[in-house]
């Protein structure tokens, strides 16, 4: 408890915070989460606490359920007919699977960046402005311009695109597209950003830029990132969770996970013995 208050005090220094951050130690808290794809039991009884304003990395071999679990957090799995989720996932203490929760509102609060950069086939400006527009975040054109500019600045893309905001978003390079997607997610002022292998389609230089960006975004957002790259998890995250065959093997500080993990499976995976 002491730890938590200190943590919070520290953060309120960094910037003004929303009510929930100061109240709880964990931003996202999952309890006994089970996910089924038809008959397949994809996630088995996962319990995890994710801290606010930090980067949590999910690692694990392919098909271990880390992406599935990530998509449960903003209920993107709802779009899959045969997918069924049990258990609680709470954001700021509110269960996102509560029947009263509208996934549309949830997704405004929990943004997402996907594996493959997927800008809309529209202009750069429209890509960023779309979210704020449907949520009614800007009343005037000037306000929208402001949101677009700050979002692009936060995504570190502003200097590269400020002169061609009406160029198609799909015309950017892969790395730029992914940062555009991050700007798009940031534009609706989410509290949590989920990233599903955001660098797997990028070259090392673009990857470095996105990682740098994640570092900066951490100050304001709670970030959960799924990655296949051990080095990336080590570089960007403070906490790391290891998944294997649908189970959460262990979850700890990243430093500890990569130097002295508790579980043999984590040790083996990090050493490259499987996966």
């Amino acid at each position: 408890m002491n730890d938590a208050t200190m943590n919070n005090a520290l953060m309120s220094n960094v910037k003004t915070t929303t009510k929930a951050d100061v109240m709880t130690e964990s931003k996202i808290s999952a309890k006994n989460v089970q996910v089924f794809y038809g008959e397949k039991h994809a996630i088995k009884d996962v319990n995890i606490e994710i801290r606010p304003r930090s980067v949590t990395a999910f690692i694990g071999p392919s098909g271990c359920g880390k992406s599935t679990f990530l998509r449960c957090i903003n209920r993107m799995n709802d779009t899959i007919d045969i997918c069924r989720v049990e258990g609680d996932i709470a954001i700021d203490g509110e269960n996102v699977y509560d029947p009263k929760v509208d996934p549309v509102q949830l997704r405004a609060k929990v943004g997402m960046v996907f594996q493959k950069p997927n800008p809309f086939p529209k202009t750069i400006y429209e890509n960023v402005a779309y979210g704020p527009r449907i949520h009614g975040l800007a009343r005037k054109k000037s306000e929208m311009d402001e949101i677009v500019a700050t979002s692009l600045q936060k995504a570190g893309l502003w200097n590269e695109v400020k002169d061609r905001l009406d160029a198609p978003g799909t015309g950017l390079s892969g790395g730029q597209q992914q940062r555009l997607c991050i700007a798009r997610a940031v534009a609706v002022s989410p509290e949590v950003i989920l990233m599903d292998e955001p660098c797997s389609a990028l070259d090392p230089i673009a990857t470095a830029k996105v990682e740098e960006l994640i570092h900066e975004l951490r100050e304001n957002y709670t970030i959960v990132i799924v990655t296949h790259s051990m080095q990336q998890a080590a570089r960007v995250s403070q906490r790391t969770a290891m998944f294997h065959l649908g189970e959460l093997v262990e979850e700890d500080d990243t430093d500890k996970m990569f130097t002295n993990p508790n579980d043999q499976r984590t040790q083996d995976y990090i050493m490259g013995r499987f996966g």
Partner: protein
Amino acid sequence: MTDATATLSNNNVRQVGGSLLVLDERTKKRNAAEARFRRMGQIAVMIGVLALIGLLASILSNGLSSFQQTYIAVDIHLDAAKLDKSGNRNPDEIAKVTTFGYMPLIQEAIKKKMAAEGISIDGLNAKAAAELISKEAPATLRNYVLSHIDAIGTTVPFKLLASGRIDGYYKGRVTMASAELDKNVSPEQLKLADELKQAGILTTAFNWDFFTAPDASDTRPEAAGLGVAILGSAYMMLIVLVLSLPIGVAASIYLEEFAPQNRLTDLIEVNIANLAAVPSIVFGILGLAVFINYAGLPQSAPIVGGLVLTLMTLPTIIIATRAALKAVPPSIRDAALGVGASKMQSIFHHVLPLAMPGILTGTIIGLAQALGETAPLLLIGMVAFVREYPAAPPEGFFDPASALPVQVYNWTQRGDPAFVERASGAIIVLLVFLVMMNLIAIILRRRFERRW
């Protein structure tokens, strides 16, 4: 040589360590198979191309002449004594003069023209000379007089249709030899036609009437046009477009994006696919039973034709639209949902615009199919002989009309050989419309297509 092949064929396995410069038996076989397949493909394409060329050549050679028409220029004195006996220019009384009353005027005019040019043909009386002019001409005159009452008593220059046989003479359909045997035309009349042509009285000009005039009776092929058919087809296409596009797209979006996957939707899906394969005449019977007998809509009306064709076109549009929706990458939906768009927003803002080229192409192909459809229209009475133009929409949707493909069918049933030319001409017009629609489809596809 035989030795070598014998040993090789026994040994069907690739020779390990053989020279790269020597083809082994397997490679030769594979290459031969590929060459065979290519030749077969080329032959298949050639057959298709030849068939198409043959078809087009025959239609064009038969039908192009229908865009030219022979006219005879005469100055007709609209004799007041014959047209308006009472002399008070009362339109009602003038209307009582039937087309028969106008025939003598034409005879007189031809006689005068021949005298003025010094043309005389042995064994040809004034009545026979006047037969060079179409039987449609008195009606043309009468319509003119009724709309220009003031012209009575004056002499007006007219360019009247030549009769079908005279027209056929200049299109190679009628010859001196065939005229001998023909009770509708005599060699003397053909001679007179030649003289008139030399004098510049008989001319050939582009046949605008072919596109605007209504159908004409069996004995007046020269006056038959596509006006009513084009109008009827246009009305039906309008109805099909207005009904089938929204219904089809709405159904597809619901089925593709919202409907749960269960037995019922599977059944609906299978049935839509089956409906696309149902013979069109079945839709005709359905239309007859439901729209005419049950709902009491008028026969031969574009509204019924349009409804029947809408039913026929819907499966095509639904299948094309669903394919187009399926082709939109799921990453776009994810992206929209990820920023908090509702399902409806993600579909209407992102998926639908991307699917638009496919939807439009499917719609236009469906429309093109509907435009060329004949069988169901025969059953709902659109094959009737219609000379009255339908009124402007929406009332016109309930007036009797014809349709292009039905007009083609209709004309091929007529006795006069001149209708062969007319039918081929109508086919050309129909084909031009179809090509235009396909071009529009291509242009729309190009314009709306976006990379992602």
